[in-house]
């Protein structure tokens, strides 16, 4: 993949940090405002896809990013199941909200819900990015 013009590259450099921070905000405030792990993960995957489309890299680096994305997706899934199983081990019920509830409407509240949001966001973001890599980099992989 060759990448796009200088204008697109410059604008991408300016905008991509804001997109990333907005995704992190949506994830971390998932238990307070609309949004959550799924939406924030998709936004972060969108930031990575924007970078990939604007700059482009050779086929070798695509394979490396694909491996990294797969590893991160597995880590997210294992985190989510790990939270569920720790509820089973510590308190006796699968997916029990075993952490203290805290004060409502504060960032550190709602027990395991923020942790679940983070796990899901890692999983969804990495999963969608690896799907994009597999589909968009397809031609380059097949030509080798």
């Amino acid at each position, binding site marked *: 993949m060759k990448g796009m013009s200088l204008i697109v590259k410059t604008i991408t450099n300016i905008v991509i940090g804001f997109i990333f921070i907005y995704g992190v905000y949506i994830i971390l405030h998932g238990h307070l405002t609309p949004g959550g792990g799924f939406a924030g993960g998709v936004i972060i995957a969108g930031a990575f*896809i924007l970078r990939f489309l604007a700059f482009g890299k050779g086929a070798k680096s695509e394979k490396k990013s694909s491996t990294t994305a797969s590893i991160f997706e597995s880590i997210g899934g294992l985190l989510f199941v790990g939270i569920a199983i720790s509820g089973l081990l510590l308190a006796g019920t699968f997916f029990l909200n075993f952490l203290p509830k805290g004060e409502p409407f504060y960032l550190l509240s709602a027990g395991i819900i923020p942790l679940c949001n983070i796990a899901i966001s890692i999983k969804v973001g990495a999963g969608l990015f*690896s*799907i994009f890599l597999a589909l968009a980099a397809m031609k380059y992989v097949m030509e080798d």
Partner: protein
Amino acid sequence: MIELYLFLAFILVAAIIATEIKDLLAAVISLGAVGFAVAIVFILVQAPDLAIVQIVVEVLTVVIFVAVILRTTHVDETIRKKLSGTQIFSIVLYAFFAILFLIVMFRSLQEMPDFGNPIMRVASEYIKLGLPKTGGANLVADVILDFRALDTLGEATVLFTSAIGVVALMRKSGRKK
């Protein structure tokens, strides 16, 4: 409520254009119009969580579709060929059952209660106990990550399976020339 019906009509028109147009790029853009209209409909029926997810997923879908179409082909060659006899027969059969289904649907929808009123028994429990039981201010997050976390685990598994499927289909190693 009139704007809701306007958007629903717009969704129908855009969906028909998306299936019938010959240029694949235009079809993808019509599909994106359908998705954004669905997001606006979600806002109109007061579901901001779903609207956010719908918008970001729609953007991503359109980008992936465009990236794939730019690398493959622009023209859908299956549209506007001459129809064969069996195709006409299946279209007539489909139209018959669709009209039958719509009539039944119309009759049964008249029996339904109004939208969001009265609140169902399970939902009223969630609304009453959401904040005190979980401490989360966003009720949707409370439901999908606490009361119904097992459903979310299933949804995560579906996404994992689809990613594995796509990567396995597009893999390089072990493929015969």
